[in-house]
């Protein structure tokens, strides 16, 4: 589906487990890495490959928050808003970002560059407030730091 390299990678992953179905989460990550998100056809492929129904795969994809069911912005900003971050000003941070991008939490900018998401505790409570931008954590944020960071993104 996504080429022989991809299928080889999947084979390697499946070999790590006593049952193919256990490769579900890592294989879905591979799909998302390759395509940017997980669509119905990919779910069908994964289902076939791992010996389960497509509905089962869709059930997994919709259970875990990190699997994307639609393409998201180039820069996916996930702001932690759980208690410790709330105590250190994450609500203000969210407001600032919504104002800067003129979008609300859960939306993507019209040019497709930025999406803004509210997430739960990222395990960074000691360096709050913070957000995860694609793979990377950005901690101990101030509004200035945030603006500088975002201004300098390619």
């Amino acid at each position: 589906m996504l080429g022989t390299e991809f299928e080889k990678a999947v084979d390697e992953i499946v070999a790590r487990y006593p049952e193919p179905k256990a490769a579900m989460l890592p294989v879905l990550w591979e799909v998302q890495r390759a395509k940017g998100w997980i669509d119905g056809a990919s779910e069908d492929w994964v289902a076939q490959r791992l010996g389960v129904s497509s509905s089962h795969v869709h059930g997994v994809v919709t259970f875990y928050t990190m699997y994307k069911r639609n393409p998201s912005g180039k820069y996916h900003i996930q702001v932690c808003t759980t208690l410790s971050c709330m105590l250190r000003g994450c609500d203000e941070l969210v407001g600032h970002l919504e104002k800067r991008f003129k979008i609300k939490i859960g939306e993507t900018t019209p040019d497709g560059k930025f999406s803004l998401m509210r997430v739960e505790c990222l395990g960074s409570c000691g360096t709050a407030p913070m957000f995860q931008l694609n793979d990377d954590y950005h901690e101990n944020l101030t509004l200035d730091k945030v603006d500088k960071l975002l201004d300098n993104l390619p």
Partner: protein
Amino acid sequence: MEKILTRNIHRESSQSIEVYESNGGYQALRKALGSLSPDQVTEQVKKSGLRGRGGAGFPTGLKWSFMPKEKSKPHYLLVNADESEPGTFKDRLLMEEDPHLVIEGSMLSAYAMHADACYIYIRGEFVHGTRQMQKAIAEAYQKGYAGKNILGSSWNCELVLHVGAGAYICGEETALMSSLEGNRGWPRVKPPFPAQFGVWGCPTTINNVETLACVPFIIERGAEWFAAIGNDEKNSGPKLYCLSGHVKRPGVYEAAMGLPLLDLINEFGGGMLHDDRPLKACIPGGSSVPVLTAAECDVNLDFDSLAKVGSALGSAGIMVMDSSTCMVKALLRIAHFYAHESCGQCTPCRQGCGWLEDILDRIEHGKGRAEDIDLLKSIADNIEGNTICALGEAAAWPVQSFVKRFRPEFENHVTEGRCVVAAPA
């Protein structure tokens, strides 16, 4: 107390196997494979008094002894690196800065469990931690610390990193197993228990990262040494405390088990964030455990001391709230967390968590009714004890404890129709 768990953290290239080995790393694993039987390793851990650092505080040696004596199926050790309890960030520190400690602890424990494979379930958001662990695992394989014939012995044990995808509930043992098997992260009805029927129907032990990180030290320096750290042998060993919220220096601090909470805040944490905003409340063990009022904070941070005052050490996520904190808003934020993270499998949690959030949302935004406060308690009481897993209690306890200890604030929101805690500019 000397640095034990965090001894490597600030070394240059602390993640590399060279640095780890040059500072005594993997000696414990060598010792165990060379001169101890798996049961002897378990005995040491039992004697040490080590208790689980994931949240439940269950005696680790005892948990290990539940595995079958006769081996008829593959055995598995699962490392719970799904750290998602709000207020907790200690496992992340170990994995990012000293991954080999985690690996050595895991392999030692796998040896004690007669495990054929060890899967480390790391939360999907820990991308940096995943990279460090992947590198370290490859290094460990190279040096013969994992895989076939470990350190020249006849023991084979694969070490696999398995990355999660965003679900707090997967930190629950049986949900972790469901997720590892390729399903939605749904906890399982117990019995059967993992040691009898775990992943893929095989005997399984699941341990927290920090718990396993203690094991090399127990083997190297002895159970008695470990048991002597702390105020009493039921609450022993070095402990990583996660301090966050309204303090000057939030972060992970290592100290002997039983550190006084006020010492953590004032000595380690530099005291309250703003000198003119005194301590109001503190959650000592991650958001799932009952909150303490300022007056109740004169307590030692260990399992039994906190249990005595009606709270718990849990995951040692100490969240400090000062006088500017609106307790209703704080509870609403916590309730939102549980509603969002509820897996949806069983009735009380699935319906109850959302209901609690809805009511708290109304109270916070001035639409609360007088009967809502007792209703909150009733709903929480109806969830507690009636669910498949402890997320039910985790959602119920904050509601019960906040309402009990800060009731006037909730009542004021209702009568005033707005938040009455002045949040300074």
